[in-house]
């Protein structure tokens, strides 16, 4: 967990907002692997590869990952069992 390259998902909140249409950094997610629940912003973000990977801060399993092309974003979010988002 002492990886100097990892960031918090807060750093990619702009990209997440682009996908979801609003800010989800404070929204709650549940990790499919370990069941941990917490704010999306607490996920660990790896942004130095060709895509972006968000890992669980407890079990380190992948929760979300995405790549972007000039015209599209491809999102794999199967590591999030669910998300809970406020409507206001």
């Amino acid at each position, binding site marked *: 967990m002492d990886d100097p390259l990892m*960031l918090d998902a*807060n750093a990619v*909140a702009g990209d997440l907002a682009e996908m979801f*249409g*609003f800010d*989800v950094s404070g929204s709650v997610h549940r990790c499919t692997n370990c069941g941990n629940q917490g704010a999306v*912003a*607490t996920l660990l973000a790896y942004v130095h590869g060709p895509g972006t990977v968000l890992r669980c801060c407890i079990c380190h399993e992948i929760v979300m990952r995405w790549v972007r092309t000039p015209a599209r974003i491809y999102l794999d979010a199967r590591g999030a069992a669910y998300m809970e988002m406020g409507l206001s």
Partner: protein
Amino acid sequence: MPEPLAWQIATVTGVRPESAEVKSFTLALPAWRPHRAGQHYDVRLTAEDGYQAQRSYSIGSPPSQTGEVEVTIERIPDGEVSPYFHDVLRVGDQVEVRGPIGGYFVWEPALGGPLLLVAGGSGVVPLMAMLRERSAAGDDTPTALLYSSRTLDDVIYREEIDALAVAKDGVGAFQTLTRSQPPDWTGYARRIDREMLSEVLASIGPQPLAYICGPTLLVEAAANGLVELGVPPARVRTERFGPTT
């Protein structure tokens, strides 16, 4: 539901050096929206061939400053975006931004305290926005700032932090210089450790709302140290910004 974030063209209206490698840039925004202290803006640069580089920079100014935001940026020697800001961008130039962004690493007086702010290097920027917001709101939440820099010349917002220390409005400022210290230095002279965190905690109480921002390894050390000292993990919010240079 708030409208989606859109990119907009900001105009640089001010550039101010903060320390040897750090400058603050004031950006006037055509679609300014009030931000929360701790939020950031994304900045996007596009090359002539279409290549884009994007970074996030914390807002240092308080939300009460309308129509513009101030981002404080450290120059990373091999960076793609920060050298452009430091070496190329001038007052009157334009740059593409979107924001404000982030709903987690934010503080406002209604969230209460006591407030513990731990910063390494330019990680002090979003925490200064919180301190400025606290001050602008006339809030009296007991607050402690623990700020780690390499040398005295690297301290960002130095005069403002020194003023906090003597203002006696409920903010305690603790500083550590990890690489070298002037002869008359009275602060800490080592990396943030558990003993230091314990001494800072003693000034505000054991159950603070903690915000830690800085290089990833500093954030890890400070967050783990606070949890070991009994601060509930749910009250420790972190913003890592990657490797130190």
